[in-house]
């Protein structure tokens, strides 16, 4: 009995269990919605969502689709890391969405208008994202402006700035930006032969392994370094951090700057893989940054856990597009994955419940 309890109290185990519960509940609710809309196709549809690339019949087609899922995982992972990193310091970086937008605008413009090589585009995306983060940090540190408010406002400012900027490099007949592959192939991230492995998926690039490496680096920085020690101390107890002589203003700005860099980098991973173009008429901030919030919580606020949660979220999102559109309206895929992602945010709630039911053992004193 005692043994069992101590497993339940193990933090890592708790995080994983809570995440799994959320996933199951999310799928269940998604399934119920499908049932309500059209009971006949519900089972097939939910299976399609869960299977994603496995719905394809041939091995190479599966691999190719898996490749696409991974390509979309890496930017999401970067946004999740951005939010995760800031969260550990007690900052809620909802501005990751805008930092992502800034990075996207900058790398696309650099690639399309200036025809810079890919690494220059990446660096400029980092600069743009970092700058957006720094603005939020600066306002927080020196004017005590809540990072959520300034973050959200910058999201919109960023969106329209980027729409404006990229209007100069769009297709004449559509709202989409020019194709990198035709204008400046050197602006696309190198694949290092990985594309060949995924059944010649040309979108598979170094972005995928890089983002995983960065996740590990973020974990190491937070948990093993002096810098991480300071940041987490600030997140846990600002007053104690001040008492210990840590420079709070500097740390807030640095944290949001790094958050911005991660999100901006994520944008370059997405747009420089050339899997999609930017639409200069879009009037909502891309969901990547917001889905990063769900990925962060589903990943148990742990950079390593976030790798898996980001993959899962993209897996069901793409799985949604495998639903038979003759049975369901076309919005269904977005709806179902949105429901599941939304429920993933309840991870913390499930953890709380687990802590309580464990007979007060994990109860903290204050």
């Amino acid at each position: 009995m005692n043994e069992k309890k101590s497993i339940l109290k193990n933090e890592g185990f708790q995080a994983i269990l809570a995440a799994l519960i959320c996933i199951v509940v999310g799928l269940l609710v998604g399934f119920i919605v499908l049932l309500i809309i059209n009971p006949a196709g519900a089972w097939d549809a939910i299976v399609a969502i869960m299977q994603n690339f496995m719905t394809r019949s041939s091995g190479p087609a599966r691999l190719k689709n898996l490749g696409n899922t991974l390509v979309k995982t890496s930017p999401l992972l970067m946004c999740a890391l951005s939010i995760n990193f800031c969260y550990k310091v007690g900052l809620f970086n909802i501005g990751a969405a805008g930092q992502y937008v800034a990075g996207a605008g900058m790398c696309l413009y650099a690639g399309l208008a200036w025809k810079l090589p890919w690494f220059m585009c990446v660096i400029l995306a980092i600069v743009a994202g970092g700058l957006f983060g720094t603005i939020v940090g600066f306002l927080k540190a020196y004017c005590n402006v809540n990072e959520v408010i300034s973050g959200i406002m910058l999201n919109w400012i960023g969106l329209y700035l980027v729409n404006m900027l990229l209007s100069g490099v769009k297709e004449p007949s559509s709202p989409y930006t020019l194709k990198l592959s035709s204008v400046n192939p050197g602006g696309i991230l190198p694949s290092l032969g990985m594309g060949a492995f995924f059944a010649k998926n040309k979108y598979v690039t170094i972005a995928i392994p890089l983002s995983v490496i960065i996740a590990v680096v973020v974990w190491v920085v937070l948990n093993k370094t002096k810098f991480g020690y300071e940041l987490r101390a600030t997140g846990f107890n600002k007053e104690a951090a001040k008492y210990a002589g840590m420079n709070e203003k500097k740390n807030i700005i640095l944290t949001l700057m790094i958050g911005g860099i991660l999100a901006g980098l994520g944008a370059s991973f997405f747009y420089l893989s050339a899997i999609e173009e930017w639409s200069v008429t879009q009037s909502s901030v891309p969901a990547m940054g917001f889905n990063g919030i769900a990925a962060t919580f589903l990943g148990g606020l742990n950079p390593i856990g976030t790798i898996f949660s980001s993959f899962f979220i993209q897996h069901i999102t793409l799985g949604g597009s495998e639903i038979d559109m003759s049975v369901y309206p076309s919005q269904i895929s977005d709806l179902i994955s949105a429901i599941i992602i939304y429920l993933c945010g309840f991870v913390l709630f499930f953890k709380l419940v687990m802590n309580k039911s464990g007979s007060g053992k994990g109860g903290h004193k204050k």
Partner: protein
Amino acid sequence: MSEYAIEMLHITKRFPGIIANDDVTIQLRKGEIHALLGENGAGKSTLMSVLFGLYQAEEGVIKKDGKEVKITDPNVANDLGIGMVHQHFKLVQCFSVLDNIILGVETTKNGFLQKDEARKKVMALSDKYGLSVDPDALIEDITVGMQQRTEILKMLYRDNEVLIFDEPTAVLTPQEIDELMIIMKSLAAEGKSILFISHKLNEIMTVADRCSVLRRGKYIGTVDIKGTTQEELSRMMVGRDVQLVAEKAEAQPGEVILEVNNMTVASKAHHNNAVKNVSFKVRAGEIVCIAGIDGNGQTELVYGLTGLEPLASGSIKLCGKEISKDTIRQRSDKMSHIPEDRHKHGLVLDYSLEYNMVLQRYWQPEFVSGLGFLKRGPIRQYAERLIEEFDVRSGQGPITIARSMSGGNQQKAIIARELDKDPKLLVAVQPTRGLDVGAIENIHSQIIAHRDKGNAVLLVSLELEEVMNVSDRILVMYEGEIVGEVDPKKTTTEELGLYMAGAKREKVTA
């Protein structure tokens, strides 16, 4: 009917690495004040948390009025008429006093709060027991004394009959303690049963009817206060004789270490200066104590010295060097600071004990490599040494999360960390708050030993006993000014009291 209001029989509660309560039995008579005594980490708070439903015991039963009850959470405790004032208060900082009192038991009509009734009841209780509070003040703006009265009113408002006080006096001024003792007695006279935790034997002697003693989780015994002495109680608690007064040699003041000139610090809560034009010196080899009633600018004086608040004007010289513009980190090179509020400043509660032990040193080459990586081995060894030297008790040693440690052991960890820095100037604010008598003895001798190594100590304390026993020189603060300097060997507590109340003052140019 049973003669006992509460019986806790054979209670056992385990935490990772430690048995906090090991087969403990206590019986609380109706209408009595029952003291609970034990060293830091003996398991007093844990036992009370079991009674209040915060923890579930693995073994044992609880009886209320002779009937067995299962207290699964604080709401159940509340329904049974059990209320608790916690060692570290649980109030909502940004709520008013009134809102905190009625929180959870609000009366509503059509979904709207009915606060008028509640206000009447609260004010009636407050008058009846002399618990003066301002119902509309926000918690974050009021003194700890008033916060505590709020907590007590919260219990009374819920018509609780069994009242648990976990170290209520640790954060109070002597005057407030006297008031609390009177309140507790009148509550008991009305038939309420009180469990009272304190490390101060004289309080237990004054107010309690009986006292139960715990040692390292085990039940030692229960004694009638009438037939016992402070010495016997402390022997039961520690298992050996304790010296209640620290031994110390004559001070040998040397060169000036700290020189403060015309220091003025603004007040955060009010629109005036909390510290007004204060000047004093502290020399090597002496312990200078700042005495005074809480809220007369001592907190701000320390904030100004340590850099937590900027000075409005004035200068501070440490070892001959002007430091009033220095950062906290720069000052911490030669200065240690045992802060007044261990949870606010002293600890990162969610960090492990070892991480807290290096909070003032983690950047030093001993603990961090050139590439910025923390060195796990040396941090662990360092923490283990301090734990050993200062007898910091916890469930899992260095890896224990600070939040789970007992209040007194949290305090010992901070003292260990600050003393081990071996500072030229030690600024200690209420260093022995919440410590048991044995630990106080130990800390006092450590502070004296630090002085004897040729260092300066600035002690800020509200406890006259500590002030008289430990210091070599006393400066009294009143309304932000130093109104008197006295020699502890030549003064009396009465004279000190006059200075502290502002009834007597002299021009001081230390």
